[in-house]
């Protein structure tokens, strides 16, 4: 009788063995990032971070008991309509589980409409102006409260209370400018000039002249990417006749290779990740990244945010226990990565409490001048 029972038990297990032996289809993540155009550097860094996370997760056994992750990549060339087009293609044809990207706010608004229409989670990992919420959008982003609020008093105290704002002519710099105005007013400072510019301007000399004429002691530069490199390089050759402290929003380690050190030295930035910060979590990430992409490659906050977003997606799927988009979207809330000072926590408003660091470029390196602590912005859902 016991032999019969053993044989019966073995037969019952056979279907399980058969199901285990079959390959699990990949969980596809549609990546829409600018791999060309004005914000190419942020797109490339973000893609590398995502790739690293996917490779590491797959090497460690995948998601939810063996499902591998797969990135399906499209270059939206920093063009919002392309972001729409590719998002639609990735959802409707490639049947991706989630979207990752883009970079510019215009492209993000465009893409999030498509994502929300199709109920697909969208993971966004770049600075923006805040107050963009929908159920499917996750913003691992530095928003004005993360850095404008801490750095204005710092600049005011150390360099005086006169400011000049210069940035791109689109929504993010517009909103940042509004916030800066508010913070400068709080410290009793003055904004002596606000100016917005189109993309791909060749010669910024007229701008420098206006800055010089303004008498401002602090320049708040909201001009990331290729144009920002160009601006800083040209500015270093212009004589303002007085000390001028530059704070470049979204300036990261990629600037070290793109901008001559004489143009970059002394420039401030504030980021949620600076690769030289000696914390175990940060250094582990830097080591992994450089092992994968080479020691000479820049490790930036865009790399880390997109890396972390992939891990958050993994955690959400495993918390949901299924490959259902709605359940994964619900499961994203409350997730945390890292611990201690480096903790990043996803809030109900789909934004993050982030550790912020004031950094300064000096002698071909970007170093932390002052940890600003974990910044907890207000609820980004309008009306809350």
């Amino acid at each position, binding site marked *: 009788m016991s032999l*019969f029972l053993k044989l*019966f038990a073995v037969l019952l297990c056979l*279907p399980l063995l058969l199901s285990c032996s079959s390959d699990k289809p990949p969980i596809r993540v549609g990546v829409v990032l600018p791999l060309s155009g004005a914000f190419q550097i942020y797109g490339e860094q973000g893609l590398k971070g995502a790739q690293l996370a996917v490779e590491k997760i797959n090497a460690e056994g995948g998601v939810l008991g063996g499902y591998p992750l797969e990135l399906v990549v499209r270059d939206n060339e920093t*063009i*919002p309509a392309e972001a*729409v087009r590719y998002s639609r*293609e990735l959802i*409707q044809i490639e049947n991706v589980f989630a979207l990752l990207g883009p970079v510019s706010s215009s492209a993000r*608004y465009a893409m999030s409409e498509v994502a929300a229409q199709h109920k697909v989670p969208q993971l966004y990992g770049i600075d923006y102006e805040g107050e963009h919420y929908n159920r499917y959008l996750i913003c691992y982003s530095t928003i004005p409260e993360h850095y404008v609020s801490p750095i204005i008093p710092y600049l005011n105290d150390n360099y005086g209370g006169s400011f000049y704002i210069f940035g791109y002519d689109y929504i993010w710099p517009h909103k940042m400018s509004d916030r800066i105005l508010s913070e400068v007013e709080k410290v009793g400072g003055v904004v002596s000039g606000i100016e917005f510019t189109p993309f791909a301007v060749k010669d910024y000399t007229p701008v420098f002249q206006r800055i010089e004429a303004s008498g401002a002691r602090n320049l708040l530069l909201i001009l990331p990417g290729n144009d920002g490199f160009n601006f800083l390089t040209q500015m270093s050759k212009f004589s303002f006749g007085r000390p001028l402290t530059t704070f470049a929003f979204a300036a990261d380690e990629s600037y070290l290779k793109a901008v001559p050190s004489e143009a970059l030295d002394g420039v401030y930035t504030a980021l949620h990740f600076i690769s030289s910060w000696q914390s175990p979590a940060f250094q582990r990430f830097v080591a992994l990244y450089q092992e994968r992409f080479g020691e000479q490659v820049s490790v930036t906050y865009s790399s880390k945010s997109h890396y972390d977003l992939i891990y958050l997606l993994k955690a959400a799927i495993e918390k949901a226990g299924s490959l259902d988009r709605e359940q994964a979207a619900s499961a994203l809330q409350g997730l945390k990565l890292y611990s201690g000072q480096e903790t990043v926590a996803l809030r109900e408003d789909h934004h993050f409490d982030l550790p912020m660091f004031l950094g300064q470029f000096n002698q071909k390196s970007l170093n932390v001048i002052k940890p600003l602590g974990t910044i907890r912005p207000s609820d980004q859902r309008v009306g809350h």
Partner: protein
Amino acid sequence: MPLIVAILVLAHGYYKAHERLIIDHFKQSLLLAVSVGERELNYFIDTRDREFKQISAAMSRCDRVEESASERALWALRYTSGFSAMILSDTQGRTTHVELSSNSSNRFVLRQEVEGERLLSADSLAELRYRYDEWYRYLPQLKASEQQKLSELNAMASRGEVNSHRFRMAQQQLFDMKEVLNSPYPVISLSEADNAKKLGLPFSGSTLLFSKPILGCNAELLGYYTAYLDKTQLEDLLFITKQNLHSNGFAEIDVTLIDNGTGQLLIPVRWIAEEQMKVGVMQEFYLPALSMKYGGMVASRLIERSQQITPVSHLHLDDDHRIDEALWPKPKPGVQLVVFISKKELKDLCDWLLVKVLLWSLLLVVISFGLILYLSNHIASPIVALRKQTALLAAGEYQESDFKARTDEIGELFQTFEEMAISIKSKERQLTALATQDFLTGVMNRRAFFSTAFEEHQRAIREGGTDITILMVDLDHFKQVNDQFGHKVGDQALVKLCRSIEMLLRVEDKLGRIGGEEFALLLIDSNEAQAIDIAERIRSSVEAMAFDEIGLPELQITISIGVSQWLHDESFETALSRADEKLYMAKQAGRNRVES
């Protein structure tokens, strides 16, 4: 083996039936998807056609001469929802103006600089020009036909004939004329694949273009206007079809449109063998079918409105006013809706079905064998054993069974059988005893003793001549004992005599009562001398017997014994007779003695 065969046949039938069900499910799902998609697409294209008529009406207004073509284009697009953009081009096809619609899909479109670019294909431009030239050539004829038709209608109305079939037909013809009088029929074509990107539109690949000439108020050709179908709406429509199939459990699906004229795919695909679709014109799969060429199950439908949107109606008032064949629109090949499910889906499902069927079959075989083993061990084997025991009992060779105790019906059967066998054996022993034993003394009776003697003699011969000696024993003066003490005492004396003799015999020796007070003994493997010795001991023992236990101490009995060796070649009767003679001699010699 027959059981395995039966199970496998059943499994095969079950698999085939369910495989058919799976295939039917695929076909039904595809049929539903393609039918609904066909209906939706026909309606979509029909709506676009009607919207373009509204655009045409707005673009052909001559009452506001101060309004430029671009202003009219802006107004024209406002009353539509299915077009992304309209471009105006000069008579050479060079773009002069782009107007983007306010569709939600255009929210993030950035205006692109395309002035001077030729966005219309050479074929489309040529067709537009041809149509215009033919229309312009026939315009006086058309106007004359219109006037004539108006006159006819007025004449009928003046005589009160407003309800006749003839009146209504004339009205319809006038209505048809109006449309063609305003402008030539539109040219419907597919855009070049890179047009959308050039215009910054939020979709890729080709879309349908609706084009017509821009006419001055004197019907002069000023250029052309082309409306771009909002392909995102088309994509969304097809995506709904795909999602419905997803919700039915299908994963590897493609839903696409193919231009029957060029074989061009209007919507990208992921699973279908795209290269095969480019080879020749794809046949219509009106009913879903498995296609090895395309790598899966396909259903397709020609979207009839895509063929019909270039109007086929013509003015056919009578032979004198027939419109030239050149104005008759060229038949368009149209687009075909293709819904596809990868054969891998079907294969995976069938493979899984096969695995399940095999596993269940194996399980069934194992359970069946288990039941057979169980039945064999618990029912069949005991019945067989019982049958064997019954046969043994019938043959008189009953042996005790080793049936295990059980509480079921079979156990009860076994129990009953055992009891019956024991009872039979007991009665058999009783009968045997009755047949072979002397009732009083319990020793063999005459018949049994004679039979035993025969058997012993046969055995002695077989064993090479073992000696057998016969003793005849007779109680002395037995009648006197009976007379003096009664028959009861006499019987007791006989019984005691037998017990006394038995105590002096070996196991192999036989004792039988062959007369009233006469007994015979067979001493096996004993010669005469040994027999005499035994006989003497018996005599002495009997002589010394006391009957104190029955209160007769004075009772004494003696026996006389005749001894004779049974020769091998003589019968028992002869040997017994000789022993009897010796007995007689013992009696004559004074009794209470042994004579040999």
